[in-house]
């Protein structure tokens, strides 16, 4: 690699001038001549039979172009929505899902008809005129009850509601006996709506004469959509173009394909008109996949001296009415249940359960926040039982030698967990905080300090591990680098940037590798008609560690060819050519140089070395040898008001290690956003359904609480750098780190604050109402509590 000048620099984002000027282009900003608006008629019931659909009135309404139902769509769509094996290869059942309901609806919001009209107001008006007759059926809403033998089923005629039941590693009763103290806890991971500020949206145009389909949509993985949609519509990939332009956030909910991703293109084909659908916020809360939605039963044991012995986790995962494409991905919570620590034994089992709710799928962190939550909660409970400081029990049990193979065979590539803990404690002023806490307790102040020493598996991922998990396609990454005759460079990548700043960071890598000016490099992504044949998309904190490496690899291919050509131009042997900051020269005579641009120009001319083709471009696919493993320690400081149950988040400290850094400003931004989302899960957010009717109670922002600027403190960041040995850039990932760490830091802080009342565990969201009730119960029931409240 050339001498680093751009990598590691705080370069301001080149996408920003457009975005701050209102010139970003999101799906809803596009239209096509003759475009019609599509509105979806959705089931108001969680579970019902569709007896009849009367479209007569709607079809006659002003501006209406067409009304389509299941019977129309089966003419142009075949197959079912994709479900990958992910971390559970064998499912007990995975109900087949067609993008629109036929005879039975199984969650509130499931599509039953669509209306096409000249304007969106007309489409919306007409959609209200469609009369659907339903016969309601019992809705399965509760995870525990869903598993009871007498439970009604989510789908009529199904044997039960069990999606999967997989024990990765069973108990080891002999090891369990070695523990001096054992704790048990049941942890709720509530359903969360991922809630990117831009909802989903699809615009599709079908050309009948050419048999081509172009789709603009808000997606994290346009190539996967092309693959699946092409299959469903019988259109080969060379005639199907998916464009994901500026995207207003994804957070995991724009990876999997959705019903509308099929219905809108199909409606374009059926009607012969371009069709656009933009999801409303209520549709988004009701029908975009939810995250989390799990319950964990956790048991853990330690020796008297604090040595950890065993942890055992059982995950009950609320899959919803169908399996999400990556429903079983969240089972990775089991594989990381041991966290950053040495345990003699780790046991884990995952149970997937169907319910009459919208499917769950990845949401920022996907399985890893859940793992961190359960492990860090267990560690604190053990510390409490042993009367040890939470920092000490962590320090005593950290994994310290790398590479480390965990109980499930996953290999942690590098880490320095204690270093991050130390730095976080230093920034927090840990000792002083503990003193303040002690003082405060005497005065009836409930101050709490919560630790979270997190680890993460990311950078998905090695082909050997990921091809079976997707059902065939390995999650590698592709890049194409083109050097034009006058030396400017275009880079095409298979990842997708929707806030992560790749337009800036990837050219930073290329600038260093090629030694050309940063400004001469342009990054392009999100259009399947450009660049390599397949791209894998952005999720799982993989873009840099896999996509960035693909960019680096393709750039190196360019340098290799340019070096050959430079040798030829110098009439020297290739081994004798040095390349430094964009200049070639013969070793030993650095005064005679050829700039990269000169060599690029020459590559398009005559007189190339024997057998060399003209041009200077390269495609690379990068298949990492392992996942990458970021880590860190976060500390939350809270004060709980025992009278109201209100939590005041006073400080938040985050020390994260994601290996080498390309652009520190962007890394910090990712941490800020991630931390805020985790805090938000801890304190505010929850998708609530009525348990009887299956109606969603949180269908608007009035009821689904998203925090504003007023709810957060400034986050105090620190950083350690432990390069990854997995890739040449030494990089890991940072997109999900904040979310993985933060929900449990806050919950541990709240539990710490309320410990004098005898409260051991608090579930999320730790709303004033939930805490107040717990505080009331604790104060009423324990003398300990009463005393503390005096």
């Amino acid at each position: 690699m050339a001498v680093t000048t751009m990598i590691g620099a705080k370069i301001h984002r080149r996408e920003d001038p457009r975005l701050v000027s209102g010139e970003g282009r999101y799906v809803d900003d596009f239209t096509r001549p003759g475009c019609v608006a599509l509105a979806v008629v959705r089931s108001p019931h969680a579970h019902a039979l569709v007896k009849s659909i009367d479209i007569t009135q709607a079809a006659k309404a002003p501006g209406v172009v067409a009304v389509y139902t299941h019977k129309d769509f089966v003419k142009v769509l075949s197959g079912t929505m994709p479900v990958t094996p992910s971390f559970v290869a064998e499912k007990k059942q995975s109900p087949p899902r067609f993008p629109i309901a036929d005879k039975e609806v199984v969650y509130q919001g499931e599509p039953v008809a669509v209306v096409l009209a000249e304007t969106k107001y007309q489409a919306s008006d007409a959609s209200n005129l469609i009369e659907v007759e339903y016969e309601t059926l019992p809705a399965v809403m509760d995870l525990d009850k869903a598993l009871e033998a007498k439970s009604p089923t989510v789908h009529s005629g199904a044997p039960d509601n069990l999606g999967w039941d997989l024990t990765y590693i069973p108990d080891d009763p002999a090891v369990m006996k070695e523990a001096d103290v054992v704790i048990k806890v049941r942890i709720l991971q509530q359903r969360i709506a991922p809630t990117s500020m831009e909802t989903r949206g699809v615009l599709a145009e079908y050309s009948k004469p050419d048999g081509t389909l172009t789709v603009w949509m808000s997606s994290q993985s346009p190539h996967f959509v092309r693959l699946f949609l092409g299959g469903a519509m019988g259109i080969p990939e060379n005639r199907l173009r998916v464009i994901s332009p500026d995207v207003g956030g994804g957070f995991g909910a724009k990876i999997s394909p959705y019903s509308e991703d099929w219905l809108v293109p199909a409606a374009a084909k059926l009607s012969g008109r371009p069709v656009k659908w933009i999801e409303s916020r209520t549709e988004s809360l009701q029908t975009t996949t939810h995250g989390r939605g799990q319950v964990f039963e956790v048991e853990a044991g330690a020796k008297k001296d604090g040595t950890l012995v065993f942890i055992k986790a059982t995950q009950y995962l609320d899959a919803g009415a169908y399996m999400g494409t990556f429903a079983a991905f969240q089972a990775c919570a089991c594989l990381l249940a041991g966290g950053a620590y040495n345990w003699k034994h780790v046991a884990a089992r995952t149970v997937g359960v169907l319910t009459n709710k919208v499917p769950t799928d990845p949401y920022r962190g996907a399985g890893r926040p859940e793992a961190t939550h359960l492990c860090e909660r267990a560690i604190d409970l053990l510390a409490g039982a042993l009367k040890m400081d939470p920092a000490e029990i962590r320090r005593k049990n950290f994994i310290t030698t790398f590479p480390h193979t965990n109980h499930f065979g996953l290999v942690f590539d590098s880490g320095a967990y204690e270093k991050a803990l130390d730095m976080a404690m230093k920034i927090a002023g840990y000792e002083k905080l503990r003193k303040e806490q002690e003082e405060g307790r005497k005065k009836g102040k409930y101050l709490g300090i919560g630790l979270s020493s997190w680890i993460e598996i990311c950078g998905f991922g090695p082909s050997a591990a990921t091809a079976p998990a997707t059902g065939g396609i390995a999650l590698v990454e592709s890049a194409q680098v083109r050097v034009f005759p006058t030396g400017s460079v275009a880079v095409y990548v298979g990842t997708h940037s929707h806030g992560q700043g790749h337009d800036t960071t990837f050219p930073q890598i290329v600038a260093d590798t090629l030694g050309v000016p940063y400004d001469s490099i342009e990054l392009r992504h999100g259009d399947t008609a450009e660049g390599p044949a397949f791209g894998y998309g952005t999720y799982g904190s993989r873009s840099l560690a896999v996509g960035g490496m693909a960019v680096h690899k393709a750039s190196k291919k360019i340098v290799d060819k340019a070096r050959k050509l430079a040798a030829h131009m110098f009439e020297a042997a290739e081994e004798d050519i040095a390349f430094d900051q964009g200049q070639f020269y013969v070793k030993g005579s650095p005064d005679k140089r050829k700039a990269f641009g000169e060599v690029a120009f020459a590559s398009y001319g005559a007189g190339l070395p024997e057998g060399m083709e003209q041009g200077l471009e390269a495609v690379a696919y990068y298949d990492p040898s392992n996942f990458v493993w970021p880590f860190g320690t976060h500390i939350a400081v809270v004060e709980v008001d025992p009278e109201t149950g209100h939590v005041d988040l006073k400080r938040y400290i985050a020390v994260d290690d994601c290996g080498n850094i390309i652009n520190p400003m962007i890394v910090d931004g990712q941490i800020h956003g991630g931390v805020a989302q985790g805090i938000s899960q801890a304190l505010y957010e929850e998708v609530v359904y009525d348990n009887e009717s299956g109606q969603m109670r949180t269908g608007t922002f009035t009821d689904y609480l998203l925090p504003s600027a007023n709810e957060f403190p400034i986050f105090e960041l620190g950083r350690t750098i432990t390069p990854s040995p997995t890739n040449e850039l030494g990089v890991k990932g940072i997109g999900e780190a904040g979310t993985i760490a933060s929900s449990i830091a806050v919950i541990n802080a709240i539990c710490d604050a309320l410990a004098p009342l005898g409260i051991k565990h608090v579930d999320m969201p730790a709303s004033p109402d939930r805490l107040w009730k717990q505080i009331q119960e604790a104060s009423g029931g324990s003398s300990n509590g009463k005393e503390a409240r005096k």
Partner: protein
Amino acid sequence: MKHKVATTVNGQRREHEVEPRLLLVHYLRDVVGLTGTHIGCDTSQCGACTVTVDGKAVKSCTMFAVQAEGKSITTIEGMAAKDGTLHPLQQAFWDEHGLQCGFCTPGFIMAASYLLSQNPNPTEDEIRQGLEGNLCRCTGYVNIVKSVQSAAKAMNGSKANAGEHSAAARRS
């Protein structure tokens, strides 16, 4: 059925015939063709659609286009100077990494412009409270607050601050 509406948008006079129920945000996006004003919710909670109407911040999804009759509207597209120089708020959001996906950004910039017009020297708390009507899912608001602080300084002519940040900026 259709009503005449005449407005001034970013300094330009506009006249259209619109349905009385047409929301101002749809008018701006679909009729005037300015798509920088975004839509993030159905219940006037997210602030993505914020514009200023006669200098006051308004969520343009809460108002009908016909209610803007005779009024002067500024959208994000009207913030930069004619020669393309970014407004200090736009510049500050860029310099301070105040945006990630950028979807909420136009609304934040418009809300902040109103805030600073009322309170040129807001404290951190006043900024946080002043922007309470806008939601961002990407930034945790950290750099949004910093952006507004930095813009306030720049707009008040505090050279030290502006210099420091633009020097650190575009290293290329």
